[in-house]
Structure formats: C-alpha cells, structure tokens
C-alpha cells in the first residue's frame, strides 16, 4: 500500500483507490482551483496554444500534495515570499559606478514591472539572441549601473528575478515569437526538448509529455511548466532557478549538462516557457 501518509480526504480517497486497483497509485492532476489568499484566482489550466502537442496546459501546482498546494495558496505561508521580499531590497540597492539602483530608472516595480515577467524570454537585438529576466538584469547592471554581472544563481540573481516576475503574479504567460529570430530559437528549443540524453536515454518529453500525471517512484510527474519559477522547492529549502532545474533534470539522465544561459538552455527556456502559454505567472511557486 502506498501513499497512505497523505492526509485528510485525499488519504481516504487514496485508500479507496488502492483498495480498488491494488498497488496502482492515484495519479493525474487534481481537480481544484488555486486562489491566492482567497482573492486572486490563478489560471492553472488552459487550452494549449496552436502547435502544442497536448490539448490542455496544466500548472505543476495540480500535481503536488495537498500540503504543498496549500502553502502556495497562502501568500503568508509561501516560503518563497521571503525570497521575493529580499528581491525588493536588491531592487532598491544602489550599486556600481553610476550610483544607481533598479528603482533609479524603473521607480516602483509594482507599476513599472507589471506583466514584464510574463513576456520573457524575449528577443534582444543588441546580442542577437533571446534573453531571460536574469540576463536582462545583467544587461542593466553592466550598461546602466556600471556594476558587475550577477554570476549564475549568485548574489541577488534569484531573489531579484523572483521579485520582478512576482509583479506579474496571476498574469498569463505570453511570448512574442514574431520578434527577431525567436522562431528559429523556438525550433532549436523544441529539438532539445525531444533530444534523448545520457545513459538513461531520456528526453524532457519522456517524462513530462508522455508520462505526466504518473508517479515515478514517489515523484508525481507534471507537464514541467516553468510559470512558477524561480520556484520554492521544499527538497532544497530555497528558491530554484529555471536553469538550475533544467540542469538537474539533464544530469539525472546521466548526461553532461549545458552551462546556464548557454544557447542550448536559452532555447530550451524559450520553448518550455511557450509550452506554458496562458498559465498565470505563479512566482514564487511552491513545489516538492
């Protein structure tokens, strides 16, 4: 018998299901709504965009335990909110030779950054590649503040990214694929999504497209959408960036994994973000 540790009604339901189907687990996304603090209803299920292999796009929130889902639904209990608050401090922190902070140019993020995080990655003409929020922050730091770039996952990178994305809390993810070479990068990202890697010979699609809703040992496989990133991961007790998670997944196939912000992972971020088109930005999401 499995998963009898699950609490409340779900435990009862699982017990009944186990009784009926023997050792099989009760998989699939839960049929519930994510309403933050009883006020802000998130779009966690929506029709897939044209060209998407699945009919419905579903947030990873639906695949987590009742306890984890409850943590995200209450902004006071959501442990990722501490990272967002820290991000606000970085937003206002003066650094670099120009004596500026983010706020010096962008003022109050609560108005200037609304919807911004929902539209990244976007085309960046000066470097002729798509950039994400992390790289946009680094562009601003170098070009406008006269400050050093943040290294991957270091210093203010995760909290500030989370803070900026959080200003789009509830807003649907929508990328502009018409700009620059975004379509070519989308194609490259798609290719990587289906590329089988490592000794275990698995692609992103092996788990998140073909087997979402099923358990792989104790882990309930989701569609792998990134609308909650940087997301709070209970396993690691902290905010986890999109590229950190990509690298972790690829590593688990027993493969060498690309560098953060490499062409490979930027293309993959663009494509995977697109797969979650229409879902609300949940940053900071709460996951297992």
């Amino acid at each position, binding site marked *: *018998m499995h998963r009898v540790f699950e609490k409340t009604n779900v435990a009862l339901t699982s017990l009944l299901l186990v009784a009926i189907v023997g050792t099989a687990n009760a998989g699939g996304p839960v049929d519930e709504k994510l309403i933050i603090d009883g006020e802000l209803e998130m779009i966690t299920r929506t029709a897939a965009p044209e060209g998407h292999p699945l009919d419905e796009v579903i947030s990873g929130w639906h695949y987590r335990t009742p306890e984890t889902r409850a943590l995200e639904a209450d902004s006071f209990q959501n442990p990722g909110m501490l990272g967002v608050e820290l991000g606000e401090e970085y937003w206002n922190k003066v650094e670099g030779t120009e004596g500026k902070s983010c706020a010096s140019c962008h003022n109050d993020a609560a108005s200037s950054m609304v919807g911004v995080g929902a539209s990244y990655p976007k085309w960046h003409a000066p470097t002729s590649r798509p950039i994400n929020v992390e790289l946009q922050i680094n562009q601003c730091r170098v070009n406008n503040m006269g400050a050093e770039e943040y290294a991957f996952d270091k210093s203010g990178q995760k909290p500030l990214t989370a803070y900026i994305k959080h200003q789009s809390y509830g807003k649907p993810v929508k990328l502009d694929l018409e700009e620059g070479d975004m379509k070519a990068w989308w194609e490259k990202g798609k290719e990587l999504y289906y590329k089988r890697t490592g*000794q275990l010979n*698995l692609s992103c699609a092996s788990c998140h497209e073909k*087997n979402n809703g099923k*358990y792989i040992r104790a882990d309930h496989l989701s569609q792998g959408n990134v609308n909650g990133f940087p997301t709070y991961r209970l396993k690691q007790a902290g905010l986890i960036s999109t590229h950190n998670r990509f690298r972790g997944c690829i590593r688990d196939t027993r493969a*060498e*994994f690309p560098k953060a912000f490499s062409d490979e992972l930027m293309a993959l971020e663009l494509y995977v973000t697109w797969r979650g088109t229409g879902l609300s930005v949940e940053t900071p999401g709460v996951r297992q």
Partner: protein
Amino acid sequence: MMPNRCSAAGLALSVSVALAVVSGSAMSDGPVAPNDIKVENLEIANSVSGASGDAAEGRKVFANRKQGNCLACHANSEMSEQLFHGEVGPTLDGAGSRWTEGQLRTIVVNAKAVFTENTVMPGFYSLDVGADVRESLIGKTILTAQQVEDVVAYLTTLK
C-alpha cells in the same frame, strides 16, 4: 573406475564434466559484450554473463536505486515492503508468466528491441544510449552482465 565402486566423488566429477561440456557450447566463457548480443524472435536465449542468475541477488539489484531502480517505474506486489512504486511502466506482477526467460532477458538488456524506440525504458546492458553521456559513464552499461542475469532470474519468479 569399477561400476560397483562408483563413489560420490566420482559421480560429482562426471556430472561437472558433463556440465562443462554443455556450458562450453551454450555459454562460452565469460560475459558477452553488449554489442555482440544476438536477439532472435525477441529472445536472447543464453546467459549474457556466461553464468546462471541468482534470484535473491536480483531482487536486491531490482530495488537498489543506484542499480536497477526498477520500482521507479514499475509496481511489484512481491516487494510490498518498499514504499512508492512507480506507474510509468506496467506492473511486474506475473511478469514471469507473461514472458519467457529469453524475452525478459531482452527487455532488461535493451527494451527497445522489444518495444521499439518509443519506449522510455533504458537499456540496462546496452551501449545504444542517449546523447552527451556523462564522461565517466561512456562505454559503460547501467548493470553488469551478471546483474542482468540476477534480475532476469528474479523476474522469472514473479508468477
């Protein structure tokens, strides 16, 4: 040796000679390299290690997360003391009745030879692997030939 003086030792000697003749032709010596394995009618007829499998050892390899880790994807009632059985692949209850030993060996060695390229099941004794394999694992298989035989021996007991 006189027939009426046939000792236990003499009997043991002749049996082991007979076995050596059989194994000499059927199993050759030592493990077969992954790329030299022949699949016929979905079956790998002979041991890939050159020795027979040990079901008790196979049960351990099956459960070990760093070896077979079979429970990640398959439920198995015979192992109900272990929590969290996966459901990506079919339950292995009755696998020993559904498949012949030779078929089970093929599925463990390289499931793609039975279920086509579409299966997500890794090949546990195959070098037909994904791209960018971790440097330290290049040219290496997930399980050794003997571990494959042990797991196959265990799977045949799941009736």
